[in-house]
């Protein structure tokens, strides 16, 4: 390991304190790979110099950038596909049946990163539920300001639209803008982006019918997972659906949620 232990431990504490993300003690290379570009961007000759700069200052914008850079922002359109199939074919029909077709649905993508997940849901609503799509709202939140700015711009590189996005949807819901692909207004209009740190006290959030909280809990310690799931329980409607990542369950909150089959996918509802 080339990064000295005290510097690595400083970053681990910083990230845990401000985002509740637990970095495995054996993964110093993550600090090197994710913060070295930021160090260069801020004119530091080395990662060590950047870390000294952080340690010499009170917590501020630079620290927030470092914390955000340490979060895993990997995402792509229709990631894992089965949650989106379950949403389209099982969950939305059940909710519309319960609510009535003239009522919109409220969907929240927590930890949306650069926006592929909420835009995937927006396209799915336009494709499959066009009459009610306009009444639906998708709140998309993330810890990282830079990721949210990219998400809100709706601009994606070719490699990003190449991954997971059916070509038919690309041709229908994107326009070509030079080297980028731009999400069309009718899709973008369904999504609202907002910064939110899941591990900090939550602002007021209107009750939601569907909550995508995928590949997030795995980065938190048990106490933070319990805290987040308690808040989820509070904002999710009694018959709402919680979608987690493939390696996640809500078991940290005991039996507060029950697993529900939605086709080939398991999601969760408040018990």
């Amino acid at each position, binding site marked *: 390991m080339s990064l000295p232990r005290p510097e690595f431990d400083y970053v681990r504490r910083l990230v845990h304190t401000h985002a509740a*993300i637990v970095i495995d003690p054996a993964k110093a290379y993550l600090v090197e790979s994710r913060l070295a570009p930021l160090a260069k961007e801020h004119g530091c000759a080395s990662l060590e110099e950047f870390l000294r700069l952080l340690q010499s200052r009170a917590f501020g914008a630079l620290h927030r950038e470092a914390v955000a850079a340490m979060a895993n922002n990997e995402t792509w359109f229709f990631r894992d596909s089965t949650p989106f199939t379950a949403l389209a074919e099982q969950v939305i029909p059940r909710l519309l049946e319960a609510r009535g077709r003239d009522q919109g649905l409220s969907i929240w993508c927590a930890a949306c990163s650069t926006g592929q997940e909420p835009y995937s849901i927006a396209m799915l609503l336009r494709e499959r539920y066009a009459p009610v799509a306009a009444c639906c709202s998708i709140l998309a939140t993330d810890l990282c300001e830079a990721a949210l700015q990219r998400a809100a711009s709706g601009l994606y590189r*070719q*490699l990003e*639209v*190449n991954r*997971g996005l059916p*070509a038919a949807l690309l041709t229908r819901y994107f326009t*070509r803008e030079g080297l980028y692909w731009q999400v069309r207004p009718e899709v973008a209009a369904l999504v609202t982006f907002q910064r939110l740190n899941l591990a900090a006290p939550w602002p007021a959030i209107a009750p939601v019918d569907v909550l995508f909280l995928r590949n997030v809990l795995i*980065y938190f310690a048990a106490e933070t997972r319990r805290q987040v799931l308690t808040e989820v329980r509070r904002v999710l409607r009694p018959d709402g659906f919680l979608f987690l990542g493939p390696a996640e369950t809500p078991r940290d909150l005991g039996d507060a949620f029950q697993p529900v089959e939605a086709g080939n996918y398991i999601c969760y509802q408040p018990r």
Partner: protein
Amino acid sequence: MHALIVDDSASMRAILKRTLSERGFEVTAAGNGSDALTLMAQLAPHLVLVDWNMPGMNGFELLCEIRRQPRYASVKVVMVTTETNKAEMSHALAAGADEYIMKPFTPDVVYDKLRLAGLPVPHSEAVEYA
């Protein structure tokens, strides 16, 4: 699963062959459209990956020829191309392409696109978390 790669570039054929072999496909390659049609009749592949820009019969013409033949109705045809014009892409989908991969691509892009085309491509076991 048997896949037929059709591309006039030997290096692209090699890349795609390696990519598909890693997920268990049996792979055959052709350097042009007419060889591809001969091989299709012999091998009955489940999947054909077609480069758009080829000398002689181009990829779009090959796609149309495949879709003209009812015996190939269940064969998945995925276009692999540097052509990123939306109109051309829509044209290929309307002519019966199941998916469309833009170059450059990564192996994961190829696997995701094949899944979108309805092919059972196994996922990698490796998952990296922080």
